[in-house]
């Protein structure tokens, strides 16, 4: 009999935590560290990677912009980077570094204090850096950079530590969707010593690679 009120009190306390709290109490800044896995089916990507996926790391800062309906609209700036290496025909090695900056609009709709679905639309710029070296005797290396526009549409879920009116809180985010990118066009021109007088050199167009595809992300967030 004496345990019954204690159980009720515990249930009430938990219920109070799980119930939606007042939105105004939540912090308006957010820092995120994420890892993403992209699935890129494009043909050109085969020259840069032995498989179809690309793992990248991401740092992001977000700020609440305004209330919109039952949710809130946030904006986020992020920097994403990833690298791949591949061997080609037993004679060449490619090293690719991909970096992008993205500005995103995120609509967050809290349904529970610890569970917040979100939808993201982002636009950005990507820079690809490709190095191709021949592995045989007297091998040479070529290097080129290319830029492209990027876009992404992602849906996700945020999981927060259930705390009442925290000044700082921590959470986990999982997102999935599609990323789009205009092709990165690379040329092949050997690295030469600029100090030397050389015969005019013309490289070759390697072609272009589009890195559009599906994307899954997971990360940790800090709100303050």
């Amino acid at each position: 009999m004496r345990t019954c009120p204690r159980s009720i009190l515990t249930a009430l306390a938990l219920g109070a935590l799980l119930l939606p709290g007042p939105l105004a109490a939540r912090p308006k800044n957010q820092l995120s560290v994420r890892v993403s896995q992209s699935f890129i089916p494009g043909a050109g990507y085969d020259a840069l990677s032995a498989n179809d996926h690309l793992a990248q790391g991401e740092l992001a800062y977000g700020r609440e912009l305004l209330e919109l309906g039952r949710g809130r609209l946030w904006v986020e700036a992020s920097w994403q980077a990833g690298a791949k290496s591949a061997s080609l025909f037993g004679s060449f090695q490619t090293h690719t570094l991909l970096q992008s900056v993205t500005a995103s609009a995120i609509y967050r709709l809290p349904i529970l204090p610890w569970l917040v679905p979100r939808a993201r639309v982002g636009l950005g710029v990507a820079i690809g850096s490709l190095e191709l070296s021949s592995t045989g005797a007297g091998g040479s290396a070529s290097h080129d950079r290319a830029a492209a526009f990027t876009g992404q549409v992602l849906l996700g879920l945020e999981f927060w530590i259930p705390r009442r009116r925290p000044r700082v809180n921590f959470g986990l985010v999982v997102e999935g969707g599609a990323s789009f990118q205009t092709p990165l066009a690379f040329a092949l021109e050997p690295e030469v010593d600029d100090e030397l007088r050389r015969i005019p050199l013309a490289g070759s167009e390697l072609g272009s690679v589009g890195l559009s595809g599906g994307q899954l992300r997971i990360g940790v967030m800090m709100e303050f």
Partner: protein
Amino acid sequence: MLARRSVLLPLGLLLAAGCGERARLWGVPLAVQGPLKAGGQALWVDGTRGAVFALSPGEGGAAPSLASGALPRNASFVAPTPAGDLLLVLSRGKEAIYRDQSAEEPGLSVLRPSAGAAPELVRFYPLAAGLDRLAVAGDGKQAVAYSSGAPGQAGVFHNPNEVALLDLTQPPGPENPVRRTVRSFGSAPIGVVFSPPMPIPAPSGPAHSLALVLAKGYLTFLDLGHPSRREITVPLVKPESSESVTPAQVLFSRETVFVRADGASDLYSLTLAARTPQAPDENDFLPSINQPSSGRTPLDVALFRDQKRDLLLTANASGDLALIDAATSQFSLIPVGSPVDTLLLTPREEPTLALVYSKRSPAPRIHFVELKGLADGLTKNLTTRKLDQAVHQLVATPDGKQALVVHNDARTVVSILDLVGEHHTVSPIHGQLPLGSFDFASGAAGSYLVGVSAGLSRLGLLDLANLHTADLRLDSSPSRVLALGDRILVDHGAPEGRVTVVPRAGASRDECQVLSGFLLAGLLDRELED
């Protein structure tokens, strides 16, 4: 619990997303053959990806341009036609082992290069998989595909004596190519030689175009005008003989075929006599064999015409020359006094001079034989020139007025031999390293010998009019040089493809251009399939 599941599910998806592997072909080494000269272009064929890369050196001040096209994969043999207007590529085909692979048929691709564009696939003749060698007639109209007998054939059975007769002027069809098996005495083809049109009976009978399939111990005649007729096999040794005789050289006079064979002590002469066929598959000619003996073992033989007679000149193992009348087999010996095994007749059309030397035992001397009146003059027509360095190779210049003497020496790289007049002067040309590759460039700037030495980043130019030398510093080590008219291409042998294009002899470095990476051009745009 819900939170844990929500985290594990995307993690699982993240792992699953990485399952798409690229085509296995990306890990297969490139099999690049070239550069080859055809249609005024330099061509490279990559059998791994099934691609041909064409470099047009640019005409009239135009910049060099590169283009690439698709080909069947697994090229086993690549050669231009004798006229240099087409490129012929034999491919082994490909079996589809995995579900995502597509099979390819073995066959012969005929490509027509065109300036500034990728070579056009004119025709494709399906062939049996084991045929990996090709012989083409001088006029480029007919070809015979045969097997090299190389190990590694995939099938349970492989017939090394199967040949395919191709009429390259006609599209592929049920009768083109014609598949045949040449009758064998236990050997397999080692080569195919085409005759010029031979009147049978000579001199006014119907012309026959013949293919001679060479095999160890015998020859096989095929009438290309009637490919369904039976072949005629002619043994070079008696059945009971243990001699090992391998045909090495075939020459054609109007009515006779002359054969020099390694291991034989004499030449063979095969006279083609007319006969009336008794059945549709029988031939209307019959070869009869004899040996026009000079009593010497010939190591090289050349055919020329003088005083309205066909004459054979042989360089013999006994260190002398033999002059044989092709019609009567009468012969005369011309002592030389040193080993000789190679003859070079010049000019190519209606030769008047034979250069005689030894490739097997290089010596610092060249023998000259004036062919005009040789049957009467014999030793009077022979002169000898001593050189400072041993002669490894003699190559006549395109105009036939000079010959390049190649020495395998780091100091005196080559000599230029004057063939005009009686004195035959020899001008030594010094260098730093043995000549690795050379060609002759000719155009408005004159005629030049162009050459490179491996390990020396320079292009050497020798003006054949005045023997003035010039040098062009290159930016990387060369592997091969070739001339397309007056344009000079230096291939550096880089796996990604790198050539230096020199617009003409005497051009400055600023007028030249290095083209790099062309064998990987379009790499990101093309999907490779297994």
